[in-house]
């Protein structure tokens, strides 16, 4: 498939999704409950796509994504609270998004530079530790309201401003997709596939690792601001280990390194618990099983056979066409 054709198809999908959601919102066809999950779906899509950059393309496991999200959410929310009477709301929102994203990115640099010298298991556990540290620091600060939480955040990103949020989601997806297909993105994937070989051909490994990590942190911070502007109150406990795992499940279920898959998984996993009420007790259990089952399936003989069959079919088709 040509690049142009792909672009047109993806653009058409985005336009259709936007039109359908707008019609549903404006015609009042949705229940209150369905209405309330539109923005969370967007938030989780942004989070899943940004984590996809780290887990899928950089090949490192970050368990502190909720930490970056919380940094962005808190700083963005504070900015919006302080500026809500001075600035028009759209300026305040854009400012909040930038402030939130940048502060999460700064945190990404602070954490990333030392941590990204590590690999694999070590990196995972250190990011987990940092996520917990961020949570406890927010908990002990007075400007964030501590454990009581930060309330009275202006509701700038509810479903009424779906257009703005949708544009933001598109920007996030385009940024990540373009980054992955760029020279830098190929370098990042080379680091993932074989970092010694990547080093040998002259790719500055730690610089590219840090870059991917910081971009992901920036996007997660923006997602945090949207989250804050939707629910209006922030508490440190919302950003715990469970949330990082939830985002990870979306990336894994979507097929690591597959942006479209991550988006679909984010939409389904956010909508499903709301649609199937009463299963909330089993939700986390199901996530755990999904993680294990996906990994076992990915590395099992069944998948290998399916892939082989697909490759054979493709080869046959190519032969016929020739």
């Amino acid at each position, binding site marked *: 498939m040509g690049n142009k054709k792909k672009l047109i198809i993806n653009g058409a999908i985005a336009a259709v999704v936007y039109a359908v959601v707008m019609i549903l919102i404006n015609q009042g066809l949705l229940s209150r409950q369905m209405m309330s999950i539109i923005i969370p779906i967007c938030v989780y899509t942004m989070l899943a796509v940004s984590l996809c950059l780290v887990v899928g393309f950089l*090949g490192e496991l970050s368990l502190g994504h909720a930490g970056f999200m919380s940094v962005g959410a808190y700083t963005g929310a504070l900015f919006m609270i302080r500026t809500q009477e001075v600035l028009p709301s759209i300026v305040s929102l854009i400012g909040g998004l930038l402030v939130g994203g940048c502060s999460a990115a700064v945190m990404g640099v602070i954490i990333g530079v030392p941590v990204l010298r590590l690999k694999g298991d070590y990196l995972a556990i250190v990011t987990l530790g940092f996520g*917990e540290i961020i949570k406890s620091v927010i908990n*002990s600060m007075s400007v964030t309201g501590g454990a009581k939480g930060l309330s009275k955040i202006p509701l700038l990103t509810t479903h009424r401003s779906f257009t703005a949020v949708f544009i933001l989601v598109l920007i996030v997806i385009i940024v990540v997709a373009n980054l992955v297909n760029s020279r830098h993105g190929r370098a990042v994937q080379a680091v993932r596939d074989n970092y010694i070989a990547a080093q040998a051909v002259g790719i500055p490994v730690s610089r590219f690792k840090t870059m991917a990590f910081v971009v992901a942190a920036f996007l997660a911070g923006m997602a945090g601001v949207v989250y804050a502007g939707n629910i209006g109150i922030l508490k440190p406990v919302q950003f715990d280990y469970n949330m990082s795992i939830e985002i990870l499940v979306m990336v894994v279920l979507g097929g690591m390194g597959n942006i479209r898959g991550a988006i679909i998984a984010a939409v389904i996993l956010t909508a499903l618990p709301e649609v199937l009420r009463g299963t909330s007790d089993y939700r986390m259990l199901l996530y755990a099983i999904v*993680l*294990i089952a996906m*990994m076992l399936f990915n590395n099992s003989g069944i998948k290998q056979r399916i892939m082989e069959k697909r490759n054979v079919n493709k080869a046959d088709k190519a032969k016929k066409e020739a």
Partner: protein
Amino acid sequence: MLSGILEQLINGLRTGSIYALIALGYTMVYGIAKMINFAHGDIIMVGAYSLYVTIGMMGLHPVIGILITIAVCSILGVTIEKVAYKPLRKAPPLSVLITAIGMSYLLQNLALLIFKATPIPFGSIIRFPAVSIGPINISGITIVTLIVTTVSMVALTFFINKTKTGRAMRAVSEDKDAAELMGINVNRTISQTFAIGSGLAAIAGILFISQYETLLPTLGALPGIKAFVAAVLGGIGSIPGAMLGGIILGIIESLSKAYISTQLADAIVFGVLVIVLLVKPSGLLGKKKTEKV
């Protein structure tokens, strides 16, 4: 002042020796399967709950309860290995890591479903009089903990160094293929390692719950992570390193809780991990590994 510091040191020794027991499980599994068993911390939790079920609910004799607990944890450890880790032995490390996290999450949420999120109070099963030496007061639990952990560690060292199974474990962790060629059953050796590691985690869980006296589905997570820090500090893969790392970490934690800040103690422990990984990633007693293409 001096007696205060001594008392803190003894407290640190007590917590540290529990960390050391857990860290041994991490380090043995890492040495032999080259993976970090994230679910190890949650085996402590399973141990604590099964002690509660056998003694608190069924009213069995404590000794029987302890034996059942150790058996349950060992079997659980072996089952986890067989079901989740064994099919992934040749898979990329990221897959194994995600599976291990999934396993840890699965155990926590199963406990949450069965026992609910409300903390369950559970009195200590250890009744041992406190001893005071001069101005220093040592509680009964501390004495029992120190005795139990010392005995376990001595027994483990003996087992690893002197018995045939222990030698097989060392051989497999040195070179899996060569060990197989020498006629060692690698699968069985790995299962045995998981069984012993989980058994030690069960003992740690019993000691832990005797000290904190409250059951929670997430009680294993934090000591698990701290014990992992201890294992890294001592050099992951090294058995004496895990013991040393655990005790050092326990003392650091207890001193920073007493003299710096209770809230920041966890942050300090993680700080230790970051510093160790950046300065000496192989740990205090670990072997340096050169990376080959």
